[in-house]
């Protein structure tokens, strides 16, 4: 499914399956990652992200399928014979070694001469802005600093690719944001392929060139952040990546670029025709992102050339940077609308209990297949 069309793939998985006893952790997965890409594996807990990464790193052997690195089949090779390095979620720093010696560990193993080890180690620490801390033990560092040591320890080996398993998962929000930016910078500077596992969609979106959304051992959709966000192809992707307002509908007519669908409660909406494509005509759901919707007091002046729905405000919550509304549609769905906090408080006319009109540009409507409820 996922980008297996990439020609000069640096990391390639072919039909890889992994079973733990009865658990199917990864289900005949295909995957190709370009050289130098920042690739994110995004998915809910237990979907097989870590397992996939561990098979690339050599810590688990696939039950079926093959793993290629730069064209070589490495399926049977132990980790120390693969030129990729992993940054573990728990950092896995060697507690008995100083930061310096941690970073030097990989180079020492590959018999690089002493002087060069020192030089490259210092460089790597510089890169992650830990220049002065080489002599400390890991326990003497804060979480964020430890994370950067782990990164330096992997980077210093100049591996073909860096595998990062929720490297920021254990950090608090503030530090996480800061390190996201730093990680992105480092990846640009060194140009190494990064494979980044996370279950935080915002993190994936703000960092990765390509995001692969995983679910139950397979990849649902892969592409750029904007692609996935604006045109999710499955309900899972639509819901996992940001908030979606989804409404059951069926196809009525297609004229030109836009198709017309009728929602289950009788409203008519228009969607770009090419997005109907793979789905049948019956069991579809149309969706729109909350920030694409504009609210207007009911029967007020609203633009006529777009999709429009009527609803009642249930909640209006102040979130600082934005105000979030929950609107009950006649069909019973609760739709979320997000409006930028331009004025410091929500207008009275959009307060709870008010009738409102929701409008949006048909081009922001997307279509997903209807999935049986889980």
């Amino acid at each position: 499914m996922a980008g297996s069309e990439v020609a000069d793939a640096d990391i390639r998985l072919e039909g890889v399956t992994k079973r733990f006893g009865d658990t199917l952790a990864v289900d005949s997965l295909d995957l190709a990652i370009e050289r130098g890409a920042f690739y994110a594996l995004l998915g809910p807990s237990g979907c097989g992200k870590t397992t996939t990464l561990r098979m690339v790193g050599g810590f688990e052997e696939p039950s079926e399928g093959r793993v290629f690195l730069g064209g070589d089949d490495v399926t049977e090779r132990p980790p120390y014979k693969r030129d990729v390095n992993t940054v573990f979620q728990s950092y896995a720093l060697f507690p008995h070694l100083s930061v310096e010696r941690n970073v030097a560990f990989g180079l020492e193993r590959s018999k690089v001469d002493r002087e060069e080890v020192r030089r490259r180690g210092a460089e790597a620490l510089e890169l992650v802005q830990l220049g002065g801390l080489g002599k400390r033990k890991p326990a003497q560092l804060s979480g964020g600093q430890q994370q950067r040591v782990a990164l330096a320890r992997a980077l210093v080996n100049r591996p073909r690719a860096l595998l990062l398993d929720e490297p920021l998962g254990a950090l608090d929000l503030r530090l996480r944001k800061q390190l996201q930016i730093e990680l992105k910078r480092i990846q640009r500077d060194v140009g190494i392929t990064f494979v980044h596992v996370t279950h935080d969609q915002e993190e994936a979106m703000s960092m990765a060139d390509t995001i692969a959304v995983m679910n139950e051992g397979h990849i649902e959709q892969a592409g750029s952040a904007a692609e996935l966000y604006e045109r999710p192809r499955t309900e899972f992707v639509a819901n996992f990546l940001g908030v979606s307002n989804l409404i059951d509908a069926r196809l009525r007519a297609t004229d030109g670029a836009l198709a017309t669908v009728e929602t289950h409660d009788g409203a008519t909406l228009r969607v770009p025709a090419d997005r109907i494509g793979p789905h049948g005509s019956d069991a579809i759901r149309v969706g729109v992102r909350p920030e694409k919707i504009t609210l207007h007091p009911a029967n007020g002046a609203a633009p006529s050339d777009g999709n429009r729905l009527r609803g009642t405000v249930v909640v209006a919550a102040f979130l600082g940077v934005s105000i979030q509304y929950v609107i009950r549609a006649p069909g019973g769905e609760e739709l979320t609308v997000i409006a930028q906090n331009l004025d410091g408080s929500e207008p009275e006319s959009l307060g709870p209990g008010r009738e409102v009109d929701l409008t949006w540009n048909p081009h922001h409507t997307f279509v997903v297949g209807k999935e049986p409820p889980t």
Partner: protein
Amino acid sequence: MQGRSDRIRGWGLGIWSAIALLYLFIPIFIVVLFSFNDNKGRFNFTWQGFTLDHWAQPFADPDLATALKNSLLIAAITTVIATALGTFMALALVRYGFRGRGAVDMLVFLPLATPEVVLGAALLALFLTAAVSTGFVTIVIAHVMFTVSYVVVTVKARLEGMDRHIEEAAMDLGATEWATFRKVTLPMIAPGVGAAALLASAISIDDYVITSFNAGQTTTFPLFIFGATRQGVPPEVNVLASALLFAVLILMGLNVLLQRRLARRSLARELVDEPQAGALVPARG
């Protein structure tokens, strides 16, 4: 929130603890005291006066010296073998889910649940059947047999607290299995292994029961003492026992000081090893 009744309860607890500790130490006082007894004949159980003579010549009795030497040597060899065997067993038991692990676990546990008379007698019966003459070697065999379980238990506890990703990280950085063990696993479990070794040597040095069955012509320190109880324990025994006690006390004191220093230097509390309380389970007779 400390009410008055709480404070009284706190005091009660403290006093009870002090009494319990006193109970533990009464015999020790006696042992140390009688190392200074200026006894006249061969017996040393009536206080006759203070002397430092025995401390000046702790090895006056060559057999006692031999016994102590044997004990120390046996303890050293036992410790090395048992620690090595036990550490690897613990490693396998914690790190690998292999078939038969449960059975191995049970086999490790059973010696701990078997009274020593039974262990000693069974082993001697085997040696008798196989016409192996007992002596130094059989003592070591016996000691390793029943200390190895303690080592496994102690090291296991340490390993279970260790993040296994750290070992994976080492391999990921190009270390082979062996290099990983040497450079990462071993240094990290070193405190546990050290505690296990201490435990093994303490048990070995102090063992009477199993040794008495398998000693042959060899005399160890506890055997010497037990033999001497029939004839009167010479004060040199008290001297050596007290000396051993003080040595341990000093070593532990140094260790505590060292840890304090480390703790003060480090910013993070993690560096101070949690007291290996489980590992300090003492030797049994």
